């Protein structure tokens, strides 16, 4: 696999506060790489540094073998985005393509193809201000890929989209990756990322938390858990084998199990006195890992362990 983008030891300080520290990751040709993290984790700052809109205090960013990132090979959909209000859809698309030095004729063709794909056929001569918000976002997305970029950077591409449009975007992003585009996207919508990303980089407070392929992350972090509905004594649940911790909420208890647990064996060990109205046995989702990290639970536990 060819590495398209390589970020090494990125560091950035705002007003004496480290907002990025030692951030390193790669994006490879044809893969979808997701940067995850709660609001304020530093995702957009990382991306803005890659785009050369901000400059890192430490570390380096290289695109293939270029030192200076060749802007016309990169497509970018920023988090804070909009388009000029009082211009026509086709005009703005062609202008943005021209800024990327993409041939006008091809741009026109691609624009029409993508407008059709995104159910915006016939809207090319409509003024941007007449489009709905969702339509506007589709046009922004088209603008970011009109010049056939080799690396596509999408900052929160799904925010504000309805489920139908989300699917449309997801399919198209997957499609682009299959055609060989390297894709770096940031998001806080775990379910979407979980379905589509090949690798992920999770960050919190400007630092790396998890980095690896989706499978690695899942085997590493997504342990089994068992949710039991029914009134039960927490001490009994805690005394069961392979239980790391128990969370109780009203009549529902969630048992977090160790990594090596064998589901069938473990289930057989459940004592008779446990009240079970419902039982759910599944893996911790990326979403839960994310919430865990975002709310600082694990970090607090770890910190506690260190201090002890």
């Amino acid at each position, binding site marked *: 696999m060819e590495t398209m983008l390589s970020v090494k030891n990125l560091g950035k300080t705002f007003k004496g506060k480290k907002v990025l520290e030692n951030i390193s990751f790669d994006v490879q040709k044809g893969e979808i790489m997701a940067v995850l993290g709660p609001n304020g984790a530093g995702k957009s700052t990382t991306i803005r540094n890659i785009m050369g*809109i901000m400059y890192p205090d430490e570390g380096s960013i290289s695109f293939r073998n270029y030192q200076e990132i060749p802007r016309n090979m990169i497509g970018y*959909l920023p988090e*804070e985005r909009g388009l*000029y*209000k009082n211009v026509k859809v086709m*005009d703005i698309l062609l202008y*943005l393509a021209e800024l*990327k030095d993409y041939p006008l004729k091809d741009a026109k063709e691609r624009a029409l193809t993508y407008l059709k794909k995104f159910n915006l056929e016939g809207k090319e001569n409509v003024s941007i201000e007449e489009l709905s918000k969702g339509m506007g976002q589709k046009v*922004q997305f088209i603008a970011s890929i009109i010049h056939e970029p080799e690396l596509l950077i999408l900052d929160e591409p799904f925010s504000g989209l309805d489920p139908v449009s989300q699917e449309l975007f997801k399919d198209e992003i997957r499609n682009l990756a299959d055609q060989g585009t390297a894709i770096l996207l940031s998001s806080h919508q775990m379910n979407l990322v979980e379905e589509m990303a090949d690798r992920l980089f999770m960050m919190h407070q400007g630092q790396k938390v998890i980095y690896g392929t989706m499978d690695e992350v899942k085997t590493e972090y997504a342990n089994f858990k068992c949710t039991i509905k029914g009134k039960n004594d927490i001490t009994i649940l805690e005394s069961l084998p392979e239980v790391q911790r128990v969370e109780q909420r009203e009549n529902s208890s969630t048992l977090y199990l160790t990594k090596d647990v064998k589901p069938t064996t473990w289930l057989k060990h459940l004592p008779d006195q446990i009240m079970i109205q419902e039982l759910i046995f599944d893996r911790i989702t990326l979403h839960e890992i994310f919430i865990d990290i975002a709310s600082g639970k694990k970090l607090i536990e770890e910190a506690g362990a260190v201090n002890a």
Partner: protein
Amino acid sequence: MQSMRNSWKVAKWEIKRNLKNKTFLIGLFSSPVIIIGFMLISSLFGDSDSEEASSTRVLINDQLNIYENLENTVAERELDWEMELTDLTDSEIKDELENTEDTAYLIIDNNVIDEGVVSVYTSEEIDSFFINQVQLLKAPLQSLQMEQLGLSKEQLEVISRGIVFSEQSLDTGSASQEAEVANGDSDINSMERIVPGAFAGFIMLSIVFTGMAIFQSASQEKKDKIAEIILSSLTPADLMQGKIIGYFVLGIIQSIISIILVLPFLSWRFDLPIIEYLFVPELILLIGIAVLGFLLFAAIFVGIGATMEDISTAGNFQGMVMMLPFLPFIFIGPVFSDPNGLMAQIGTYIPFTSPGVLLLRLSILEEWPWIEIIISLAILVVSVWLFMKLAGKIFKVGILMYGKNATPSEIWKWIRA
């Protein structure tokens, strides 16, 4: 190279976008039409006045029997004159003029043949274009002069000196009359100065007004949150330069359209050879000053525009900076009353007022103060360079700051960065 190409792409886009915009197009044509409208209205009032009383009464003491010729010329050019022959002498004319309005008295005597000077006495109230209209009598008088003279060398010299209408104030007696011969043609000159000056001033004004659109355009970039998308393709400096170039071209377009509409009207209305007065070498310097003025204000506007999303949310600081282009108006009075005075010189050296004041002074002054011009040009060039740099720094950070306006202290921090 790449950067220039990028700037030009932005410039082209801004030009195209505005030329497709109805509001801009309406403004483009309506402003010259409004100018013409105002002039028409004022001339309507002027005409209704003159119908009652004030055709200019021109008394001619004709000692050369050329009255009929002059009358023909006046009729041909449709001047609004009531001509009369008179044999009043210089001293008698004084009393006569003191009690009348809009009356002029020309003495056409041997002085015209020998010296090429026609003495002109006017009442205190006189049609402001009279002294220009009177120039039209040159032709018949000159042919008379030639008739009367042989064609010897010296005499040809006399002819080539031309005829001068020497305006005499009522207070000066006949004794000082001759003394004024030398600078008698100052009024023609003043028109020759004012026309290009006014023209350059007009160009500057229209470019500055278009320049304000730069402000609009820069803050729009923030409001529409497109800056980051654009900046993924080019640098902030490219974007800023592109905007300045684009709006400069739009300003030129505005000027050209205004000129095409207004100039023929002016020529028709005032019967002056405006085109001849206009295209003189001095115009290049005047336009140069106007362009420098534009660049200075363009830099200020593009920088300030990048610090806020909406003009209505402008803070005191931004508001004050926005008023800078209007600073020269403070100097108009003092400069008119004394074009070489202290205020005029101060205004010449302050970069924000320098283009306006300089244009005004050069239009009034007969003798151009070259040293002052060069110093103030130097100041202007340095200021343009400096403000472009500052604007670049402010623009780079400000344009990406969505959702809030920059405070002066933030702006100061960006400048120092």
